[in-house]
């Protein structure tokens, strides 16, 4: 798939990649292009962008196959280190969570927990799970996006990092009560993974928080 010939409008500039909007036939798509980093040796740079583009596209596809709500991969442009995926209409959770009343927010978090449960059960960890990487569709269903840091892993440590990062972002950026939010999330998570995995992952998440490796909560 060649994305160079697509007419697209810029959407967002991240640390690693640029996102832009385009149209292919009846579909609105997002093009995620990993851009060349000036500081990095050119060969190393190309290798990293190439490897990550392939790995991210395949993880997203695997997550989709496992039944998680994620974008659909439309195509991969290996020459240009770009992934083309379906555009998701909706609002970023970071922006709408605080406008919800408590029961609505709890319902959303429970549903986010189910999605994370589906990913973890499929052997996928997200690696950068914050409320900025959840898009809430007009019907209220959460989609998980940005698998740039994701990996295949079934380690409690890696799964714990996912829950920890989500908790950190809820504490740092939202006015909703963090413990009630996380309780709802865990209930949804447990429904998918079962009690055993849920309790070991949550234990690990709290342990990671205490290590103080990540900021904001101790």
């Amino acid at each position, binding site marked *: 798939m060649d994305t160079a010939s697509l007419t697209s409008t810029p959407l967002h500039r991240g640390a690693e990649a640029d996102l832009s909007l385009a149209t292919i036939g009846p579909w609105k798509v997002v093009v995620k292009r990993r851009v060349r*980093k000036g*500081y990095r040796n050119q060969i190393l740079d190309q290798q990293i962008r190439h490897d990550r583009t392939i790995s991210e596209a395949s993880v997203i596809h695997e997550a989709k196959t496992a039944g998680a709500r994620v974008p659909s991969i439309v195509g991969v442009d290996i020459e240009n280190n770009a992934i083309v995926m379906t555009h998701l209409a909706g609002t970023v959770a970071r922006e709408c969570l605080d406008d919800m009343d408590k029961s609505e927010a709890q319902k959303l978090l429970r549903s986010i927990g189910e999605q994370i449960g589906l990913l973890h059960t499929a052997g996928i960890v997200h690696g950068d799970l914050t409320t900025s990487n959840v898009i809430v569709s007009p019907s209220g269903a959460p989609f998980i996006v940005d698998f740039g840091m994701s990996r295949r892993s079934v380690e409690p440590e890696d799964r714990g990092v996912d829950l920890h990062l989500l908790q950190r972002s809820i504490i740092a950026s939202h006015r909703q009560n963090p413990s009630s939010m996380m309780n709802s999330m865990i209930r949804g998570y447990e429904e998918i993974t079962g009690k055993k995995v849920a309790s070991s992952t949550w234990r690990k998440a709290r342990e990671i928080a205490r290590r103080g490796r*990540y900021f904001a909560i101790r």
Partner: protein
Amino acid sequence: MCLGIESTAHTFGASLVDSDDRIVTNVNSTYRPPVGVGIHPRKASEHHATVADDVVRTALSTTDGSAIYPDVIAYAAGPGLGPCLRVGATVGRALSAFLKKPLVPVHHGVAHLDIAMSIAKARDPLAVLVSGGHTSILVHVGRKWRVYGETQDITLGNLLDMFAREAKLPSPGGLSVGKEAMKGETLIKLPYTVKGNDVAYSGLLTAAAMSLRRQGNLADLCFSLQETAFSMLSEAVERSLVQTRRSEVLLAGGVAASPRLREMIGSVAEDHSASFHPVPIEYSGDCGAQIACSGRLAFNSGITVSTSDSFVTPRWRMDEVDVPWIPRA
């Protein structure tokens, strides 16, 4: 006038900083282990005890030879090698008791950032601290430095030093590897490990050392090691910069002397329209001036310690230190 005493690892140093934050004197003596060998803590501490008298005396003298008496004595209380820390702390306690001047404990890593910020006149930067003891990306929140990203195993300084020892290159390893890297051309594939905002260097060290034992080309290996290790850190710095939206990037610590690392972190800062403040090379490595600079700021914030409580702390995390003097005016 604040006297600072540094003795956390290989360097014993003493320095005076005046009330306008100017470095008046800065005298340092560094223990150099033989090629292929690391710092032996006891031998380094013996070196410190031997040179302490001369170093402090010189730091407290004006150019015409008359003595300057400090108003505050600051010592590096940690983190570092226990035997080395105790030499500096003993000298600090003795001077404080004899001159009847207050004693201030200083965190060596915080001090690296303080001197870099003083010289750059940085206000509230994203700080990148790279040395033998630290590899951390930090932002100041509330009263403390918060670790935004860091190494999960060995530091960047460790990596370069240990590889240099393996390759029989002289200490400091960063300088030797950097020189050798200039002759390298071919990039050898080595493990590249970035986890979120964190990096991990131990796998990279093992792979590079194994390649060396298989008679790999030394210049190419040094080149590849440096490119890979610095790129990992630069990527973590870039992610942190985007997330924290700081407008200044500070680069401090011994490895900040590397021209290639300065170039790379500078490029990350430029890409995100942040100003870049690398510490001047003469103050990048361990020195008395960093302790004097940080000690003055701590004293002005009311931090002192009684002689009986003036412990050393060989393991002391940066995010445990109270640093109320940031953002700087």
